[in-house]
């Protein structure tokens, strides 16, 4: 983490999507998506289950190929045809379905595909960097020489996050990173997101937890049924956000809130 890569002027546009669409056969998972990410900015991506958030992340990670639209990284149009290409361009991802090899140990997973000295791997140096990185994340990993299979869900999540930081990315995308984490770990991840932002990198955060989103996001991009449904800020009221996510003012959430209010009034 120490050797920071070329920092950007704050506010510089580093990622720009225009009209991105993705079809899985008959299913249109994404349609006409626009998204901007600037240096030193945390963009929260919210939406109901199945809104297409993970699909968008996978398109940007080079896992899926978009069926339409353009992606620009630092002003240059790019094709993210492999995950390796996305990593090269400085886009790192923590996937929702964790992408770890259970048969390999923590160090091997952290450095997978980017081992130090490929012809004679430097295990000692890799282990030192692994511990340093994990300590920065305040991770509680008992041993980095145990296979991933022996770790808990939260510990695996931490390893996945640590791995995304290893390559000093320009943009880091986190797909529901705190879903499996405890209270302290969640706070650590939010701190981490702020630190990454302070270093002038862009962050895309996906979370169902509105509290977390409000705590760190500069902008909140809402997806609904695979389409853009407005851009909001942390100041936007809860009701308004929920309405954008669910697509109506009249919905289960607002009905429930109204009922609670009535109960309080009567009580």
């Amino acid at each position, binding site marked *: 983490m120490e050797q920071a890569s070329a920092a950007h002027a704050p506010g510089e546009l580093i990622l720009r999507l225009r009209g991105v669409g993705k079809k899985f056969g008959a299913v249109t998972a994404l349609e006409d998506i626009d998204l901007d990410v600037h240096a030193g900015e945390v963009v929260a991506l919210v939406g109901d289950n199945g809104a297409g958030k993970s699909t968008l992340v996978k398109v940007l990670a080079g896992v899926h190929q978009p069926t339409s639209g353009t992606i620009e990284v630092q002003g240059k149009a790019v094709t993210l045809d492999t*995950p390796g290409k996305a990593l090269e361009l400085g886009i790192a991802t923590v996937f929702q379905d964790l992408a770890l090899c259970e048969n390999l140990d923590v160090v091997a997973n952290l450095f997978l595909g980017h081992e130090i000295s490929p012809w*004679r791997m430097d295990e000692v140096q890799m282990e030192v960097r692994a511990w340093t990185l994990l300590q920065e994340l305040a991770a509680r990993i008992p041993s980095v020489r145990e296979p991933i299979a022996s770790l808990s869900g939260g510990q695996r999540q931490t390893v996945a996050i640590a*791995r995304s930081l290893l390559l000093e990315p320009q943009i880091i995308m986190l797909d529901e990173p705190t879903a499996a984490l405890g209270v302290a770990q969640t706070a650590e991840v939010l701190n981490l997101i702020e630190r990454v932002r302070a270093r002038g990198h862009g962050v895309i955060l996906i979370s169902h937890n509105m509290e977390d989103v409000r705590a760190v996001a500069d902008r909140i991009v809402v997806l609904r049924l695979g389409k853009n449904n407005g851009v909001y800020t942390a100041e936007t009221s809860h009701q308004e956000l929920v309405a954008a996510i669910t697509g109506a003012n009249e919905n289960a959430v607002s009905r429930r809130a109204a009922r609670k209010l009535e109960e309080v009034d009567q009580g």
Partner: protein
Amino acid sequence: MAQDMQTKATGARLDQGDSRVRHDTGLSGALRGFVDRVSSGDLGMLPVVVGLVLISVVFSLLNPVFLAPANLVNVLFDAAAVGFIALGVVCVLLLGEIDLSIGSMSGLSSAIIGVLWINTGLPLAVAIAGSLAMGALVGVVYGVLRNKFEMPSFVATLSGLLALLGLQLYILGPTGSINLPFSSPLVRFGQILIMPAWLSYLVAILPGVLIVIGAVRTNAQRTAANLSSPGISIAIAKAAVLTLGLVFAVYYLELSRGVPWMFGVFVMFVVLLDYALVRTQWGRSMFAVGGNAEAARRSGINVQRIRMSAFMVCSTFAALGGVFAAARLASASQQAGSGDVNLNAIAAAVIGGTSLFGGRGSAWSALLGVLVIMAISNGLTLLNLSSSLRYMITGGVLAVAVIVDSLARRSRASHGRA
């Protein structure tokens, strides 16, 4: 970012901050760790060692000739060819793939040697290069079928089995058999040539020395990097046991002819492949693809290229095995590579501890496994059992090895060790 660091228990080693972990040190610690691993299903080389001891006891009781030095030298001569094939099989098994055409590939390779070298009169080196190139090419074909057409490797290689056998019969022509001259270096290599005694002893001492030097260096590096170091007592104990064993083995073989060059070359390739699998990025990628191909892809690994390389290494080693088999038999015939060659090579890799399910294994499993298979085959031949019985027994041994593999896998899953 250092100010954010929450180093617990400052002063402790970087990797020993967690009080929940037992940090095994010294010899007793190593022993305890070993028992833990085995009981959770991480068997490693244990079954094969137990198997070898069992086989030695049973066969030497049935026929004392089995353990005679002269017979063991023969076993080593026989082991090299199948050993090479098994070495290739390890690579494809690591990816969770299979190559069922290795027998045919080795047979074809023998035939190419015969045709190019004897019938056409090309230099031996050219003939060998030709058969290795053929092996690599066949690997490319399997790789393309797997990568571009998503053809399961067992289907692709099963059709390869027949196609390559056909090609072997075709190029051998109606006579069907080509004899290689006994005075030629290739046949002498396959039947007579023995490493000089001093070299065998030197090679027997080398691993122990390297283990100790390696341990001292790793310890120094780890200490300098503020990591815990396991101490060198374990390494010294390991090296002592290994050196004693190897030196005794060489001494025992020297009572007869000694260690065949053929076997020595095979062991050298085992060491090379082991280095490639354990110490290089390529090897790490092989394990990753075998463990979770999608995760490997998302880490930026070119999964298709890794698969291609595995199939190529496998077929090329099978071709090399064919060259060795031709040298051993002094002929290139229609029978080369048929019969139990396929099964023996795959069984050797699995018995040695390489999992059929991908992601686990080692180059050493080819060496140990082929010793088991060849010992069984040799022991049964000494008992004058027909090949029908030999086939059945070898088949049974493979089944047992696969059962052990499956049970160990289940146990590892329930112990969280994948």
